[in-house]
């Protein structure tokens, strides 16, 4: 069984003018099976978007990497060397957060699809447009009309679908979506998620979703990785994360989200999430953790617990070695 994405102790940082490196991702390891829905959940500045960017291959030139990253067993990141030929835009494709700004406002949807298909397959305009129509109907847009529309003539939800169609038209098998629904209204979000699920089934895609909402991801994701300050502090199956969140941070995230109809007191987490690149000695969550104790001055390794992994010293006794 092929692993779509595999990361081994991956670290990603950004170098500034004085050659200081700010590490956004501080050593993450995970595996994504083909056809799986994998979610990276975390707050802003935790590094989840950086991980996504590393998988897609759109890190800026001043980025610094360590560790290893494989896409379908091909190494794309080894130490500070990054080689995405054949991967970026071919095997892995990207659906950005804000559909309004990710589509070229001067070209019709049809033209944009044509450029992609032409550069991937080398087809001429006629053939490209035919295939483009197929992709548009795949994302439940009316091909005949949308193909001639400019992005600003479409609603937000339609723009997002068009962006997905463009991402799919590269023939990619892995789709990385960076907060695909945060720019949309509530009722559109549901539709979009259903669409992604359908595509996963029909096109046997591997979906990597980057998001900040823990509670909702639980329902659709096979595996969830909770990211905090550049580290994965918990990894478990989607349904488990709500029933039994292991890490104190995950517990608090779950408690902090308002649930409709149940007006339990909202528990807030004191303090603020660490700034991107901030170095914290020991466990990254220790400064804010309500269950902190002496052992937390050392950074905890990831323990295998039940069906998941959690990086917290509280679990050292029940961890399976």
């Amino acid at each position, binding site marked *: 069984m092929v692993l779509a994405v595999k990361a081994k102790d991956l670290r990603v940082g950004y170098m500034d003018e004085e050659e200081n490196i700010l590490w956004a991702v501080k050593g993450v390891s995970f595996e994504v099976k083909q056809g799986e829905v994998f979610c990276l959940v975390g707050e*802003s500045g935790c590094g989840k978007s950086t991980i996504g960017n590393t998988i897609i291959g759109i890190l800026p030139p001043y980025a610094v990497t360590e560790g290893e990253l494989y896409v379908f067993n091909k190494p794309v990141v080894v130490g500070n060397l990054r080689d995405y030929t054949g991967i970026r835009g071919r095997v892995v494709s990207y659906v950005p957060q804000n559909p309004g700004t990710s589509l070229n406002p001067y070209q019709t949807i049809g033209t944009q699809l044509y450029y992609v298909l032409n550069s991937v397959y080398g087809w001429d305009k006629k053939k490209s447009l035919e295939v483009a129509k197929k992709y548009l109907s795949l994302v439940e847009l009316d091909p005949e009309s949308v193909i001639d529309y400019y992005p600003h003539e479409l609603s937000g939800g339609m723009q997002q679908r068009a962006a997905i169609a463009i991402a799919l038209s590269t023939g990619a098998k892995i789709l990385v979506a960076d907060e695909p629904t945060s720019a949309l*209204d*509530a*009722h559109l979000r*549901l539709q979009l998620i259903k669409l992604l699920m359908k595509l996963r089934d029909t096109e046997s895609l591997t979906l990597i979703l980057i*998001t900040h909402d823990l509670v909702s991801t639980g329902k659709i994701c096979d595996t969830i990785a909770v990211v905090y300050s550049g580290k994965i502090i918990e990894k478990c199956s989607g349904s488990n994360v709500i029933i039994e969140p292991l890490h104190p941070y995950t517990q608090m995230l779950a408690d902090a989200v308002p649930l409709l*109809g149940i007006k339990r007191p*909202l528990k807030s987490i004191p303090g*603020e999430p660490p700034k991107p690149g901030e170095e914290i000695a020991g466990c990254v969550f220790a400064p804010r953790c309500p269950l902190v104790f002496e052992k937390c001055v050392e950074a905890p390794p990831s323990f295998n617990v039940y069906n998941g992994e959690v990086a917290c010293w509280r679990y050292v006794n029940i961890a399976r070695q």
Partner: protein
Amino acid sequence: MPDNNIIVLLKDVVAGYQTTGRGWRSLFKHVNVVLRNVNLRVYDGERVAIIGESGSGKTTLLKVILGLLKPVKGSVEVLGKEIYKLPRRERVNVLKQVGYVPQDPYKALNPKLRVRTILSEPLESTKANLEEIEERVREVAKMVQLSDKILDKYPSELSGGMMQRVLIARSIIHDPEILILDEPTSALDVSIQAQIIELINNIHKKLELAILTVTHDLGVAQYLSDRAVILYKGEVIEEGHTDDIIAKPKHEYTNLLIASYKASI
């Protein structure tokens, strides 16, 4: 219990933006109507939420209430006075009793000013002297749980949560009768949203002012309001006690909102 003082009253408000029509129609002034027959009242001390998604007209409604957009029809009363019938100076005086927290903290704080100046700005047109102003600034900073050190910083040195607190502090420093918040938590991380919601409710209890929250998030509305109004395509399609609306929605659209909230990312 709210007493019978009405802080904000909208009667049959129809409002929109002026656009030029196409072709020959450009000779005539044409108004693109966004709000139709909106009725709204906020009593003293109440917590009300206006729930609407993008395109529902909530931004327009806010502008109408804040005196920034004159409605085509209908009346807008703030603290008993019809603000659009007043000369500008008096209108500004009435609106000084309104505290407003805009949606985007990055656009609502002047990057060239220190927090202290930002906070003391509403007090500049009062007769307070410098010491009184400074004292009041410290008072509100404490109320929103910001340390005194923040007062000397610039907005670029603050995190999202801190910026939101500064905005809230600024909105209450002149002791308003009502606090109007536009999407108070959408720009924030989940772990901070809960903090801000708690803060707003504390302020409501302590200062006994009315709170009007405009949001698309039903969860936020649930925690920040006792009464809610659902806005869809410029019309009020449902209103009542927030908990009742959530438990027993009457309109289809409300149902849709609730279902999406429960199921979405």
